[in-house]
């Protein structure tokens, strides 16, 4: 490529697009980096997720609401309805990543003919619409699964769980104060590598073949009023427009509006100046709607509905709930959670203790990569509500510290409980091993403490007496924060472990009878009866 600087060049849309790509990709990286207690301040770090129209559309289906900041997606839907899939090449950080990787690894130096052929439309590219249909069907059924392949969710998740920790391994303390770990991160990492690596075979592989957001925007693009138009009187059928076509939208014949990324490469490449971005060019020179084979669409619907039905019927979100599914504070009830969580793992990114982990099968197939607490790795800081602040869909509601701790105006309701801790006396030092401890009581953050101890004198094995304190749990006070489990010296499997029962977000999983009204203080009043 020749870099001859011409002032005229600056104001070409193609070049402005490149500026926009740098801008938005940098912005994305900035947001990802700054999602940390130290730097967060007021930055809208979930902005890309809130702009993502598929997120707001799908959650509107599952929850019948548009949660708080998701209204921002209107800002993207409106231009899409007018101009087409500008998002895919101008704004989407994942698309920019694939664009860049394709340029870096793709048929750059290969001959022109190969490049042109690689950008022709293939029938395979209708797969993303099937995927979208399956996901929408699942949403209609009642489970939100767009997070698997939505590009923003995927990219955020990859950054949070695997890329940043990997960076931190190579450059210690550059991202985290102490190294963060995420269970099963390797799967997410290799998936990312695979998708990015596929750009070697097919340029913009993910964007053209798999991206459900692209499919959604492509569907919306059917009604655009502007599009790339080829003037057949000027065109000489040289196919040069395909050389750098990102969307594989066939600009050399009838433009496929649903595939065009509005990257403006074709306009720059046409030697006859036959391509332009026109307002309402004739319909017969375009393929207006996405081409989706009907039978495959039907299959997609079945798969989506099946995902919901088979997933739910497996019971993991109902009576057979796993005791390890401890959700972040402010989470909605499990079935609603699976309606809202887009598996973006923003909460996992911002959590200051590394306690949040992407689940695998604990909450069934629907809950893969949704956040759960693993007290072996961290614990929930009592006065922290960061996860709710960054959750774009309200799977974790944007609660305040007072609502979480049950203080101030919320003293009657009492604190949010994540679960309840239970002693495993066979592993506990003072209970089973004649050794004083009660670290759990020490670190219990509530007042009065949920862990209390009683002094006892026992005769040790060597015949000498020892007076030590043995700990007990008070379930009325335990908020399930897990710091006891985390600090327990029996680190492989703690002698006190938190499980999900008693969590306040679910009426069915309450441990103690409290008349349906939670309140440690009120419960104490009643227990005195």
């Amino acid at each position, binding site marked *: 490529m020749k870099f001859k600087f011409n002032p005229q060049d600056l104001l070409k849309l193609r070049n402005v697009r490149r500026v926009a790509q740098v801008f938005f990709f940098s912005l994305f990286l900035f947001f990802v980096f700054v999602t940390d207690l130290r730097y967060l301040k*007021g930055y809208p770090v979930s902005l890309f997720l809130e702009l993502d129209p598929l997120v707001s559309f799908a959650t509107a289906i599952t929850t019948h609401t548009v949660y708080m900041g998701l209204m921002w997606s209107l800002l993207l839907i409106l231009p899409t309805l007018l101009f087409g899939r500008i998002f895919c090449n101008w704004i989407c950080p994942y698309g920019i990543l694939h664009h860049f990787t394709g340029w870096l690894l793709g048929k750059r130096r290969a001959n022109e003919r190969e490049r042109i052929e690689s950008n022709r439309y293939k029938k395979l590219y209708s797969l993303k619409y099937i995927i979208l249909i399956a996901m929408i069907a699942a949403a209609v059924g009642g489970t939100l699964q767009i997070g698997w392949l939505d590009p923003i969710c995927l990219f955020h998740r990859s950054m949070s769980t695997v890329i940043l920790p990997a960076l931190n391994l190579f450059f210690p303390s550059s991202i985290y104060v102490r190294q963060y770990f995420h269970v099963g991160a390797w799967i997410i990492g290799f998936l990312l590598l695979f998708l990015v690596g596929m750009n070697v075979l097919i340029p913009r592989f993910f964007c053209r073949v798999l991206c459900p957001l692209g499919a959604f925007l492509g569907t919306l693009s059917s009604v655009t009023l502007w599009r790339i138009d080829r003037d057949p009187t000027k065109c000489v059928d040289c196919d040069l427009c395909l050389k750098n076509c990102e969307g594989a939208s066939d600009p050399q014949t009838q433009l496929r509006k649903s595939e065009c990324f509005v990257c403006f490469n074709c306009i720059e490449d046409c030697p006859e100046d036959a391509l332009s971005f026109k307002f309402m060019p004739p319909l017969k020179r375009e393929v207006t709607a996405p081409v989706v084979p009907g039978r495959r669409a039907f299959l997609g619907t079945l798969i989506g509905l099946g995902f919901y039905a088979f997933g739910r019927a497996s019971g993991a979100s109902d009576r057979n709930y796993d005791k390890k599914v401890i959700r972040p504070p402010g989470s909605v009830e499990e079935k609603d959670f699976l309606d809202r969580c887009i598996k973006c793992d923003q909460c996992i990114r911002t959590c200051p203790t590394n306690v949040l982990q992407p689940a695998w099968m604990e909450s069934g197939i629907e809950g893969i990569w949704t956040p759960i607490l693993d007290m072996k790795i961290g614990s929930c800081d009592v006065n922290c509500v960061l996860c709710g602040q960054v959750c774009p869909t309200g799977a974790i509601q944007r609660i305040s510290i007072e609502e979480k701790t049950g203080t101030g105006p919320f003293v009657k309701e009492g604190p949010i409980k994540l679960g309840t801790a239970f002693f495993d006396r066979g592993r506990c030092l003072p209970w089973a091993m004649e050794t004083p401890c009660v670290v759990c009581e020490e670190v219990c953050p509530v007042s009065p403490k949920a862990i209390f101890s009683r*002094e006892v004198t026992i005769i040790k094995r060597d015949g000498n007496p020892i007076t030590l304190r043995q700990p007990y749990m008070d379930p009325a006070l335990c908020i399930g924060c897990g710091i006891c489990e985390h600090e327990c010296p029996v680190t492989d499997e703690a002698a006190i472990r938190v499980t999900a029962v008693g969590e306040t977000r679910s009426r069915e999983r309450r441990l103690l009878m409290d008349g349906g009204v939670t309140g440690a203080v009120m419960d104490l009043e009643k227990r005195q009866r």
Partner: protein
Amino acid sequence: MANEKKPAAGNRREFVRTHVPLAERVASAIIVVLLAAIGLAIAIKGKHFNPDIFAVRTDSLKSTTAAVVGKGGTAASMPETKTENPVAAEAPKPAAEEGSGEGGAEGSAAAPKPAEKGQPLEIALAGIKPMSDTEFYNSDNLFEKIDGRAPAYQGFNVQALRCRSFNVLAAAGSFVDVYEYRFDSPVDAFGMFALERDPKGQPLDFAPDGYSGEMGYFYRQGAVYVQIIASDVKPETLALTKAIALNRAKELPVDDHGLAGRRKLPAAGMLADSVSFVLENAQGQSDFKDVFQAKYNFDGAVLPYFIMVTQPDDAAKAWKSFQDFCARFGKAEVLPDVNGGKIFSAQVFGKWKVVYQREGELGGVFDATDAGKAQAFIEKYLRGEIK
């Protein structure tokens, strides 16, 4: 339409579009401006945030002012579950704090009880700052602080030591050590003080039983033996050392209970640094207790003198038994009474004693080489000519 054939292979020359329509340029400009605006907006948004997300509002803690009924505290906060020394669990007494600067207990009839143990040594003076926490010792562990001197202190029934060091703000690196040894009685405090008395010390005007040395002040106040010691001889340090000494003399209550005998020691001719106190078995006599001794200049000689104040009957008995004792080991002779006081003089092992007894007072000169002077001294004293 020209139908240029596509070349069979090979790359064509790169094409660069030169004609950019105005509409496109305007749109491009608008977009660039838009991007800048977005960046700016995000930067501004980043600065505006609700601090309540990151930290607890102190207001919200108002709901925690009331304790929860029915649930106890930790073992450390619940006295009935403690097995340790109950002293730490006692609520701090609102008794007059020694260091608070609020009016010393001057003139109070009873000295404050030693329960003040535990109160930090606070001195309200400008120019000093505590260097460390107050240290507390009792009789058993006093040796940890003063090592080999401890047995002597224990001999005088020391109860506690409270000490603290203070930085001198005006002199970097300088500090003043303050030691307050509390004894069980002013008499014992005096005894220890007298035992360690430096003969070269200068008398103090604010403490009758006290002296100042090159780098410190030492005195007895009440049942407390106070030592204020400077780390160096810088003028600022010495000035503050004196100020602290004055402060403690003001704060510590005056109590001379049991020092009656001490009072009785006549001042005339007394060698100031010679006052000492013998708790018991003075002169080898088992009934000689709380005896004060001093040396006097009299008529060109130095006469050691002792005095004891007790009940008249006991005094008479002790006088008689001392006389018998002296007769056994030497020669004793009863002298005529002077002014209500019975006197005997004795020579034991080459030294003269002249001992008198008047009511509850029992005293005398001992270890004198000149019998005549000893006798004259006693008679003069009894006549009230030596005060």
